[in-house]
């Protein structure tokens, strides 16, 4: 390579680099814009964690109603409601559910965070219910029979024998559901919630810079998902070591 070409490309690289650091400064440092990202991140985590807890509780209750109905024919009315709930939630887009929750169902609730938690929680509950139900169905009937033959009640057999095994089997699917939800909360900007994705959006609208804010936001989501996947894998390994299938 000719020394002059080399010097020229070095110069262009260094000018590109200084332009990028200037952009970085504008996007994150100037006017403390980094706070849009950090505040958004906490909002996102807050909504996702609360929604996953709500979804797990709802999903668990719905799953127990559904499988008890399938096995014993009890809870006919509750089962019908559960079926409608699952069909409606799984049959409509999350964005539409969020808009309906914000503008119709909870229209007199002023708290956007709470509305988002409720909408995402109810959405997640339907999916978690089907995951848990599949987990319960996957446990051999002989397990419940053995529990009942020892004199345990249906509830005792469920809590001590069937559910612990079912939950172990469905843990990967539940973890996946949380990951999907963590990413899905980014649509909360539709109702103007200041989450992580909206943080990037606000910075873009103020600085006319798209690359850096959105790539940074994507990287943060990616890192969160990777950390969570790692934790989940570790938990699965731990459960495998302490017995089970």
């Amino acid at each position, binding site marked *: 390579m000719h020394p002059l070409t080399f010097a020229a490309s070095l110069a262009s690289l260094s000018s590109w680099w200084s332009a990028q650091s200037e952009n970085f400064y504008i996007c994150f440092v100037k006017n403390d814009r980094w706070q849009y990202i950090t505040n958004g991140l906490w909002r996102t985590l807050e909504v996702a964690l609360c929604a996953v807890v709500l979804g797990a509780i709802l999903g668990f209750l719905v799953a127990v109603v559904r499988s008890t109905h399938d096995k*014993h*024919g009890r809870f006919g009315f509750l089962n019908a409601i559960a079926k409608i709930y699952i069909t409606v939630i799984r049959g409509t887009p999350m964005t539409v559910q969020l808009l309906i929750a914000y503008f119709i169902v909870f229209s007199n609730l002023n708290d956007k965070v709470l509305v988002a938690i409720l909408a995402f929680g109810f959405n997640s509950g339907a999916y978690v219910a089907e995951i848990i139900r599949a987990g319960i169905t996957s446990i*051999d009937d*002989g*397990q419940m*029979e*053995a*529990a*009942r*033959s*020892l*004199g*345990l*009640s*249906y509830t*005792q057999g469920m809590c*001590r*024998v069937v559910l*612990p*095994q079912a939950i*172990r089997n469905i843990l990967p699917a539940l973890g996946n559901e949380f990951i999907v939800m963590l990413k899905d909360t980014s649509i909360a900007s539709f109702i103007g919630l200041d989450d992580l994705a909206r943080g990037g959006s606000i910075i873009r609208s103020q600085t006319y810079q798209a690359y850096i804010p959105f790539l940074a936001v994507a990287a943060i989501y990616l890192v969160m998902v990777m950390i969570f996947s790692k934790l989940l894998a570790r938990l699965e390994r731990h459960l495998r070591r302490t*017995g*089970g*299938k």
Partner: protein
Amino acid sequence: MTTPAQAKSDPFLSDRPVVAPGRPLLEVENLHKSFGSLHVLRGITTTIRKGEVVVVIGPSGGGKSTFLRCLNLLEVPTSGRIWFGGEEIVSGGSLRRDGTDANLSHRERERNLNRYRSDMGMVFQRFNLFPHMTVIDNVTMAPRMVRRVSADAARRKAMELLDRVGLPDKANAYPQQLSGGQMQRIAIARALAMEPRVMLFDEPTSALDPEMVGEVLAVMKELAANHMTMVVVTHEMNFARDVADRILFLEGGNILEEGTPTELFGSPKNARTRDFLGKVKN
């Protein structure tokens, strides 16, 4: 029936019906069971006395397992009556889905059902050990949850039983670390931990590799020698011959013949029995 105070002092004897004197432990009268249009049991009548070992033999699909599963109401009889310790647990006229008296509330029926079952040990063809628990937890769970035995007492009793089935060193193993024969011996110990008044065995050796059949049969023989009341569905004719007090030959949902091993193996009266025994002899 004992009072709650007594139950506390002797958990293994709590809440148990007392056998009416002079009555057999189990009485079955005209038991029918259908699955949809399939009529599996067509009127079984028999009695099982305390300490008796009854072996049920017969061709596959003849209703042997269904009969056994009806005894502790894992299957709900379609009609018929069953008395356990003189107490009627199934009465044909007022049967509910779970086989108990329609006049009782759901809660009362469930409680009765759990009580009958806790007094009948069941051993399954496929063991059905709880894979997420250690062997000792498998054995102690039901006494602790159902009989409210203390952790210590349950553990002592469990170790005794593991000793009895020859597996005291497996207490902290998980079921999947055991062989089939070992799992079935643990399953027997688990059922015995409830101190049942009768043990029901549903083809306990059918899922085992041939070299493991002997160790399970040995445990069952030891039980029989100690006067445990047993109802055993099996294809092990040698066990039937050696251990049974009485053999029932079940085919097409009926008891075609019953008698002592000498009677049944020596001079079967029914042509179907002769035919079946001729086929299984080798």
